[in-house]
């Protein structure tokens, strides 16, 4: 039996660019280039490794996002995923975490799955909540924030490095997994991979395909509302001294002046 893996990938504004909010207080996506959230590359990588270990596996990458989000899917396909699903609908603009998890869960069920793999957090919203929400909605175990993951005999096992302890976890499939950036460097797409990706199928779905109504998602359906977004004044550069042999002492003087010593 083939192992069906769905990898959730998000298309995000480049964090090294100058990110802004648009007039409706959603992320201004025209402002900055978008890309596959770097933390989701780790999810794709682990999916590829798990698929390699399995007798037979199929990896579907899934994104919920605007037209350009196809770029994120292409990147994942060129890394080696087999096919892609793009949930794209004008009514999705402004969807919050609850809504995103709803759409993802419906799309995952539509695709069919044994294992869902996500990143630890997006690099824009950075909430780190979507995988747990998807698990709750699908009614399957969450095996999240793993720095090591393996699948065998219908079970997923992994290591979760928390603040207080490092835990070894185990759950039966189907399950939702999320992986951290400690799980292993993601591979670069090869030239062959990039060429092959062009021929791989990308299925587009809209809300009606998933049996969802417009008012369940988007800004109107959002369960949270941003009332204000204020750009912080850039920190004004403070005192900078060049060490001429007394740098440590001068710094101590500053710290004492601020009552830290």
């Amino acid at each position, binding site marked *: 039996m083939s192992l069906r893996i769905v990898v959730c990938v998000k298309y995000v504004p480049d964090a090294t660019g100058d990110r802004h909010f648009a007039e409706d207080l959603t992320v201004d996506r025209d402002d900055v280039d978008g890309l596959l959230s770097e933390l989701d590359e780790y999810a794709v990588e682990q999916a590829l490794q798990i698929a390699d270990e399995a007798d037979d596996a199929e990896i579907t990458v899934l994104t919920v996002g605007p037209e350009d989000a196809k770029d994120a899917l292409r990147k994942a396909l060129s890394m080696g995923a087999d096919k892609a699903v793009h949930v794209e609908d004008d009514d999705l603009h402004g969807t919050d975490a609850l809504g995103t998890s709803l759409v993802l869960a419906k799309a995952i069920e539509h695709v069919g799955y044994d294992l869902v793999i996500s990143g630890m957090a997006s690099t824009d919203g950075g909430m*780190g*909540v979507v995988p747990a929400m998807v698990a709750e909605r699908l009614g399957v*175990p969450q095996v*999240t924030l793993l720095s090591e993951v393996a699948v065998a005999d219908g079970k997923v096992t992994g290591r979760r*490095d928390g603040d207080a302890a490092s835990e070894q976890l185990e759950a039966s499939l189907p399950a939702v997994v999320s992986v951290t950036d400690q799980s292993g460097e993601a591979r670069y797409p090869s030239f062959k991979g990039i060429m092959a990706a062009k021929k791989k199928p990308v299925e587009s779905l809209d809300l009606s395909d998933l049996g969802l109504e417009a008012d369940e998602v988007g800004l109107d359906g959002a369960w949270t509302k941003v009332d204000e977004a204020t750009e*912080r004044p850039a920190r004004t550069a403070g005192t900078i001294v060049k*060490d001429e042999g007394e740098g440590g002492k001068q710094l101590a003087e500053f710290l004492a002046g601020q009552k830290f010593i």
Partner: protein
Amino acid sequence: MAEVLVYVDHVDGAVRKPTLELLTLARRIGEPVAVHLGAGADAAAPVLAEYGAVKVLTADAPEFADYLVVPKVDALAAAYKAVSPAAVLVPSSAEGKEIAARLAVRIGSGIITDAVDLEAGDEGPVATQSVFAASYSTKSRVTTGTPVITVKPNSAAPEAAPAAGTVEQLAVSFGELSTGTKVVSRTPRESTGRPELTEAAIVVSGGRGVNGAENFPLIEALADSLGAAVGASRAAVDAGWYPHTNQVGQTGKAVSPQLYIAAGISGAIQHRAGMQTSKTIVAINKDAEAPIFELVDYGVVGDLFEVVPQLTDEVKSRKG
């Protein structure tokens, strides 16, 4: 007055500071009711009462330790049913956010994560978030259901405000999903005796410039002279010089101390995302062009191997 559920983060009944901050913030929007799960409620209850908990709901069961996240969601959902609160506050730890996430889905409520401030508003609690590597500050509300809000450490100074703190047993029935993810084994982290990174008033971090695990004691010595926690950049962590649990930044810990000292760290956006809300920022870097200097209140352009030990000696002698 409306009740506000506060999820208690503790180690065997030793309540962690972020929870005291939550109790303090909760009082701005209602009467805090603390939810204490697992062992140690007897030790925790008086502390929770001292910081304003009118009630402490407790439950202990092996499920909380033996299975991941979901049993705690079952318990928090039971508390939610018992109280019908105006809001649910959870500390913004990795686990806290996951508990909050599932609870929000279950009770049909919007969620806001990583709030750095909280106030009462006409239409419910208003949360301030610091986003896009702290380049923006937003104010948001939950518009559907009971606001579920996770709050970052160091968002408020804990203020005592003694309340009744009546302890009540919470009846929890665990759902089928609660035993879905088994914790097969747990290796506790060794304590360093230093303050928790996310809770510390002062953090001293080292980066690639520290140039080797064997040099990190230099950073530790400075930290110890100031009673600070030790942080590291991802470059230092990836090189294996310091444990990942000490990483500061987007994929590490977000810290917001009174004082942040960065030694041998360039100040990449992902690092800044985790420290830019620090009150006072100090950097030591030999490259005058390093982006970290754009943020600093005080910067020393120099070799950390010269500056850091001199600073440590000076701090020690001033402290006597």
